[in-house]
């Protein structure tokens, strides 16, 4: 199934977002807006924070409004008591639920504007086909990506240039919102099939190959903690990895410490990760973190029943509960 775009070109989406933001600020429903804006390069649409209705024209909705704005809510909440408005995609909205469930966010202090999302573009994939320096803009019209390359206009099928994480996205529509910015889209075909494809590929290796595979991945890790910092599930006030006493994680660049970090990080989001994939996308070293997170999701689903985090903030995550007849992944004799 193809997502609906119902005709209006990308610019109209941006207009719609600006309009909602402007109204909310002018009516004093919120004192600030968190959304996305365009930065210097074609592939950059980072999160922006606006308080002045006059600034709302900076807001944008384009193929690169990927960044999760959710985690900024924590800083906002800590520093001020007023209400904030936030634009969220499907994945981001589950981050809202994540924070709500973790009691890190008060629902009444945030106005959620849900933005149904057909997927975001992967700059790497575009660069592989077009000279990056000559690209002036990238927009999405219908199911086509329209690129201004030099003086030419190139039209390509969007699907081939979307982020992998968007291709396996099961919830493109926001699951929590106060206002839906435009009508919902349909989930992508093959999203379910591709969900655990990479996990299964790694599982099919023998033990030593798996170890070698992951060593190759983790070898690149520079422990910048970007994966943790962007993750709405990693919302502790003081992360254990930042604590000096007890020193849970060594500071030296030791492969064992890197492994320790990745095991414990994944364990801490086990049953809580809602598959936004930002950890992996943001990683400067290209560590395939979603393969780890999804492995745990798969394992939990198989053993303890299907569970999707971030859909209902009132349920209990799988590691916070049990059933007497649970199976075990070890010898119970």
């Amino acid at each position, binding site marked *: 199934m193809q997502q609906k775009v119902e005709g209006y070109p990308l610019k109209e989406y941006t207009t719609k977002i600006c309009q909602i933001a402007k109204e909310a600020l002018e009516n004093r429903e919120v004192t600030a807006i968190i959304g996305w804006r365009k930065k210097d390069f074609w592939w950059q649409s980072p999160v922006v924070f606006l308080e002045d209705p006059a600034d709302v024209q900076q807001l944008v909705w384009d193929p690169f409004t990927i960044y999760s704005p959710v985690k900024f809510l924590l800083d906002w909440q800590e520093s001020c008591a007023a209400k904030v408005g936030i634009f969220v995609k499907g994945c981001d909205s589950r981050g809202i639920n994540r924070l709500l469930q973790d009691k890190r966010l008060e629902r009444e202090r945030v106005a959620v504007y849900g933005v149904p999302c057909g997927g975001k573009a992967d700059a790497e994939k575009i660069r592989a086909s077009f000279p990056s320096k000559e690209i002036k803009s990238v927009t999405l019209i219908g199911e086509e990506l329209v690129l201004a390359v030099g003086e030419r206009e190139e039209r390509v099928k969007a699907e081939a240039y979307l982020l992998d994480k968007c291709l396996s996205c099961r919830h493109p529509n926001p699951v929590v919102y106060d206002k839906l910015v435009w009508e919902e889209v349909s989930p992508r075909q093959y999203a379910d099939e591709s969900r655990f494809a990479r996990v299964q590929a*790694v*599982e099919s290796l023998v*033990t*030593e*190959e*798996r*170890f*070698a*595979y*992951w*060593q190759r991945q983790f070898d690149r890790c520079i422990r910048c903690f970007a994966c943790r910092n962007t993750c709405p599930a990693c919302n502790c006030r003081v992360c*254990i990895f930042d604590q000096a006493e007890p020193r*849970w994680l*060594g500071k*030296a660049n*030791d*492969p*064992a*410490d890197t*492994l*320790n970090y*990745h*095991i*414990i990080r*994944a*364990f801490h989001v*086990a*049953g809580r990760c809602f598959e936004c994939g930002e950890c992996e996308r943001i990683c400067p070293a290209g560590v395939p973190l979603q393969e*780890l997170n999804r*492995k*745990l999701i798969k*394992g*939990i689903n198989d*053993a*303890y029943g299907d569970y999707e985090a971030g859909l209902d903030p009132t349920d209990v995550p*799988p*590691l916070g509960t*049990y*059933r*007497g007849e*649970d*199976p*075990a*992944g*070890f*010898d*119970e*004799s």
Partner: protein
Amino acid sequence: MPVTNEGFEPLIVAFCCNWCSYAGADLAGVSRMSYSSNVRIIRVPCSSRVNPSFIIRAFQRGADGVLVAGCHPGDCHYHSGNFFTRRRLTVLKQMMEYLGIEPERFQVRWISGSEGAKFAMVMNSVAEEIKRLGPNRKLRDVR
């Protein structure tokens, strides 16, 4: 399969819950059941006290194997502790195996306070398996 790694004496850290497995270890002692001296027991009140970080740390510091032992499901002194242990450590174990760690390296078993013989048997079998695997190099600190 013959036992290789002749001469290698593994170090095994066993986290034992106070009420069942630690008591089982004591019973093994009272009954004079001999088992591998490579095992070092850390007493914890309940298997649910065992933080995965403790396990990883033991490997980092040079343990060749880690065992977590608790009461049988339903027998937990604290009602439900081992039920949480079961979920948590199943997840941890699956992840470690996925990352290429041999399944025998990290084991979880239920041993009751009356199972002295089982305690000795488990210690011996774990020691034997670890011995066969050889030293832990994958999770150990380089320094």
